[in-house]
């Protein structure tokens, strides 16, 4: 049995293909061939455990290239995105990568302010290493992470001249929520406590040698949340996590990445109790992934990179083009470039512009696996309805009854229209794959 606090409801109905598929999309990047059946067989508890306690990392499939050469993630523009997307596609630890993506959004740092891909990748590894560990470790690591020290001006925050940027966001966005449990005075005092970090600027190479220097730290007494002491950056982190407003912010924010409707009061209280004990992330994630709201509640829009990685996982294709970072940018999500420190706006992934980006992602993902439109494929069924099933099965997905009616109609009308272009069933199946991959069904899970 998984550890859950009293009062946390667990999904108790049959855990079949539909539930396994939803879990794979919410807690990862969708299924690879065989994943749905394998997970369904494990049952809910076993399936969740297989995600939260995966085997050592193993990347299956061809290593990433930009179409000609191996990628250079530390140096080449966009290859940072390709590097992470490749991990999402080839990993056997999807929840770890999905959690890294959540932390990237939570502690949103952009390379527009950091300007060193190597530092962004270093931060990315931090998110992966602390994916399901302790929030206390994670917050401390992020607070003094070089990319973050550059992004929110930690290296400019000194005894003589405090800079409030990190101190404010660590409370507003990372631990407490806007105007919850802190005042403007706390912002200023946090900035003082956080002083002491610095780096050396190397001409042409950017900042390097990030370190703590006691002479830059403000040794005086600070008053934060009504407590006084000669606080340091570590105290800052500790005080934020022990603020009574923190657990509710933490569990609700974490929940919102997995389930689109807010938790009910009992669930909220249960999650807070579970988390407050020792600030461990894994038990909270396990409780959310077992909660009935995840399986019986409404659908969640897939973030663009989840959508892209999912299509590549389903089609068994690796990263073999530099176009992926450009198309994901069009779709509204360039990794390592969140729009601001608040992260991406998860309510607005889809609009008339980002839809076009996803359209191109689907086109490019499906192109090399298209059935030859001249010679066709003799194993294709003749019946329009069966062609729809064939296309959906290929994408390892199911379609809603509403879409089914229209796609059946499309297949029937398209078969005679396609004849003048070549092998009609092949052309229709290829068209259906594009339609299913860009349908409202597939944009959500």
């Amino acid at each position: 049995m998984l550890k859950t606090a009293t009062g946390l409801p667990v999904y108790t109905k049959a855990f079949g293909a539909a539930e396994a598929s939803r879990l794979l999309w919410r807690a990862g990047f969708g299924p690879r061939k065989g994943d749905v059946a394998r997970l369904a067989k494990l049952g809910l508890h076993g399936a969740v455990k297989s995600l939260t306690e995966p085997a050592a990392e193993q990347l299956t499939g061809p290593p990433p290239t930009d179409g000609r050469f191996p990628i250079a993630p530390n140096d080449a523009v966009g290859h940072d995105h390709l590097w992470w997307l490749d991990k999402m596609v080839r990993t056997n630890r999807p929840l770890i990568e999905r959690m890294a993506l959540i932390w990237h959004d939570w502690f949103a740092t952009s390379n527009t302010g950091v300007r060193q891909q190597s530092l962004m990748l270093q931060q990315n590894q931090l998110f992966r290493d602390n994916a399901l560990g302790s929030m206390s470790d994670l917050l401390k690591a992020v607070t003094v992470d070089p990319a973050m020290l550059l992004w929110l001006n930690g290296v400019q925050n000194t005894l003589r001249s405090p800079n409030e940027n990190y101190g404010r966001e660590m409370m507003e966005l990372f631990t407490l929520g806007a105007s919850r449990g802190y005042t403007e005075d706390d912002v200023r005092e946090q900035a003082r406590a956080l002083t002491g970090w610095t780096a050396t600027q190397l001409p042409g190479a950017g900042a390097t040698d990030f370190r703590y220097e006691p002479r830059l730290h403000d040794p005086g007494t600070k008053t934060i949340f009504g407590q006084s002491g000669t606080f340091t950056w570590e105290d800052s982190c500790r005080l934020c996590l022990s603020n009574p407003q923190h657990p509710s912010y933490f569990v609700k924010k974490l929940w919102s990445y997995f389930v689109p409707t807010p938790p009910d009061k009992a669930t909220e209280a249960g999650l807070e109790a579970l988390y407050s004990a020792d600030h461990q992330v894994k038990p909270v994630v396990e409780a959310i992934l077992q909660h009935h709201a995840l399986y019986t509640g409404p659908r969640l829009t897939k973030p663009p990179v989840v959508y892209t990685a999912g299509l590549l996982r389903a089609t068994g294709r690796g990263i073999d083009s530099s176009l992926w970072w450009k198309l994901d940018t069009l779709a509204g999500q360039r990794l390592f470039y969140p729009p601001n420190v608040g992260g991406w706006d998860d309510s607005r992934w889809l609009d008339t512009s980002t839809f076009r980006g996803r359209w191109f992602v689907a086109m490019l993902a499906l192109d090399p696996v298209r059935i030859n439109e001249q010679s066709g494929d003799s194993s294709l069924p003749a019946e329009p309805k069966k062609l729809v099933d064939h296309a959906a099965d290929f994408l390892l997905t199911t379609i809603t009854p509403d879409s089914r009616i229209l796609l059946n109609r499309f297949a029937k009308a398209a078969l005679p229209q396609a004849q003048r272009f070549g092998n009609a069933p092949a052309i229709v199946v290829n068209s259906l794959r594009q339609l299913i991959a860009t349908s409202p069904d597939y944009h959500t899970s």
Partner: protein
Amino acid sequence: MRAACSCNEFSRAELLRRSAAQAGNGLPAIEPGMPVPAGTGLSRRDFLIGGLGTSLAVYGGGKLSAALLQNGIAQAAAFATPSDRILVSIFLDGGADSLSLLFPNGDPQYRVLRPRLALPASSGIAFAEDSRLLWHPSLAGLAALHTEGKVTVLPAVGYDHPDKSHFTSRHYWQVGATDHSLLTGWMGRYLDAYGVPDNPLQGLSLDATLHPELATAKVPVSTLDAPDNYDFSLPQIKLPLQPQIMAMVSDLGARHSKASDPALRQAGEVASQVQRLRSQLRPFQGADGSATVKSPVAYPASQDSFPHRLAGLAAMLALGLPLRTVALRAPGMYDTHAAQANTLAQGLKLTSDSLLSFQRDLEARGVADKVLVHVWSEFGRRAKENGSQGTDHGAAGTGFLIGSRVAGGMLGEFPGLSGGLDDQGNLKPTSDFRGVYAALLEQWLGADASKIIPGASSFARPTLLK
């Protein structure tokens, strides 16, 4: 007031998710079978009527009566309502430093508070309405338009009890109220009250994603990277049935735009608007699929898409496309906690030069009287500089109203750095953004502001137009 907002607050992500879920309510049903508008070489008016006419059929069996629908289409196409004026919102993202945009060179406190950041007097451009203030040298374009009476300056615009969070404060500006719980944008509510149910271009976000000030509860709005760039084909990949596939995308969307599941419904609405927008933007698509915007004036050359988007916007307006409210993000980074001088100068220069080109473009095309641009930021910055040659979050900021019809001059006083700072050392507002919004709605768009801005009657209305 703030305490009441914070007690029961769910995370911001959740608030935004809920807002998206609600933004779908009340969208009209669109029937399957939307045809791709056929033919090329239609004249502008023919295109609008013809183009909208072909699309009109697809709405036939929805919630709307045919007569009401005809009326809505006719309004959009004939472009002859009292609101044939366009309001453009431009956001300086991050909290632009009001004490640099127009710097108080003549205030004795300026160089005390800004020992390292103070701009040299010799670099500034004179500002007629207040001799203490000088324009930032990068704003030469706006200064020139101001001299022509085409820019109104708001030197200290904001609200009481300012919030120093980027996200909370910009939310206030986006929804048009100091209210955490509002889920629609102020321009979105204007469209809900005065827009039509079938014209996504009435609320256009010229950006990669939707600007929240345009979020509606009932009527459709759209998002577009650039008007000449909305094709759905890739040169290296050919789909033999592309027209039929695109029609089916729209059908699938329409079907799901009635779904009870909010995410499915939102995806459906977007998919059904894609086809509508494609038909509206047909004038930008050449016979070979390629398209360009031809501008009568030069725009700044830049990697940033802002000047290109403004050039496209001018072209759309000249074509008579049924736009009403438009939102863009200005280039540049305004959250200048460190090394402010260069960052700010670059962003301001591209913004100002592009806006100057845009105004000249509109004048050359003869549509300048129809357009009013509002430039805003979520707050200004702390009067006292920090130690990183930057500034931290402040309160009142600078706003601009730009266009041939604006009153020009200055709106609200510059409060000065001695008596004009609050107890945290931030500039106090001398005008309220909600009063500005109410005046824009009433005087520019001819709308009843009390339907759109909560508590509208309590805000003084500045006179905005000539």
